[in-house]
C-alpha cells in the first residue's frame, strides 16, 4: 500500500517533469514545477502516516513553504516578462542566445 503512494507520487513527479520541459508557456511551466513539489509532499506525508511519525509532515510543510517562496518570485517574473514582451512564450526570450549565434 505504501509503495502505491510512492509510485503515484513518482508518476506525478514525471508528469510535472514532462510539462516543465516540453511546454513553452511560462505559467504552465511554473505550475508543472509546483506539481513536482506536490509529488514530493505526497511521498513525505505517506511516509509519516505509515511509519507513524510526524517528521514527514514537518518536512512537507517545509516543501510547501519553499514552494510559496518560489511562487512569489515567479509572480514577479510573470509580470516583468509580460510587461516586456506582451507574451508568455519562453522561446521569445532568447536575445542571449542570439548574441552568441550572430558572432
Amino acid at each position, binding site marked *: 500500500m505504501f509503495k502505491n503512494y510512492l*509510485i503515484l507520487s513518482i508518476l506525478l513527479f514525471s508528469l510535472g517533469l514532462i510539462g516543465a520541459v516540453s511546454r513553452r508557456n511560462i505559467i504552465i511551466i511554473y505550475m508543472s514545477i509546483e506539481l513536482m513539489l506536490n509529488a514530493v509532499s505526497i511521498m513525505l506525508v505517506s511516509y509519516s*502516516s505509515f511509519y507513524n511519525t*510526524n517528521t514527514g509532515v514537518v518536512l512537507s510543510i517545509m516543501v510547501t513553504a519553499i514552494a510559496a517562496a518560489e511562487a512569489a518570485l515567479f509572480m514577479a517574473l510573470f509580470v516583468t516578462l509580460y510587461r516586456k514582451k506582451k507574451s508568455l512564450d519562453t522561446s521569445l526570450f532568447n536575445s542571449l542566445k542570439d548574441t552568441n549565434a550572430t558572432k
Partner: protein
Amino acid sequence: MLSNMIFIILATNLLISSFVMISTKRVIDSALSMLIALLSIAGIYATLQSSFMFITQIIIYAGAILSLVIFIIMFLNIKDKNLPHEPHKTRDMILTSLVVFPITAVLIYFIKLSDFSNLNEKTTSSIGKVGLELYQNYVLPFELISILLLISLVGSITLARKEKDV
C-alpha cells in the same frame, strides 16, 4: 477495501487532471485543472489521515497560490493571441516523455525493490503532534524558512515594481 477504492479514484483523478494541466493550450484551463489536481492531493492526504496537511493543502495551495496564479492571469489580461505559439506541442511532449520514461521506470523499479519493513497501521496525526515535532526538532529550518519568505517577498517587490525609465 473502501479506502483502497477511494485511493484509486483519487489517484486516477489526480493523474488525469495533471495530464490535462500540462497539455492544454489555454492557461486558464490549465490553472483550473491544476485546482482539481491540488484538491485530489488534499483528498489523498485525507486517506492518509493527515488532517493537518489536508487543511494546509486546501488553504495554501488551492486557496492562496493557485488563486494568486489565476489572479495574475486575469491581471495580465492574457488574450489567446498572446499565448505562445506551440505548433509542435504534441511532438515535443511525446519526445520528452520518451526521455523521462526511463527515469520514472528506474525510480519505480527501485521503489519496488526496496524493502519497507516495520510499517505501522495508519494513524491519525494530530496538529498538536505535528507542532511539537516542528518546534522540538525542526526549529532551525522553520526559522530559516521565515527568512527565505522574507527574501522572496522583498525580491518580488523589487523586481515587479514599475520604475521610471532612467
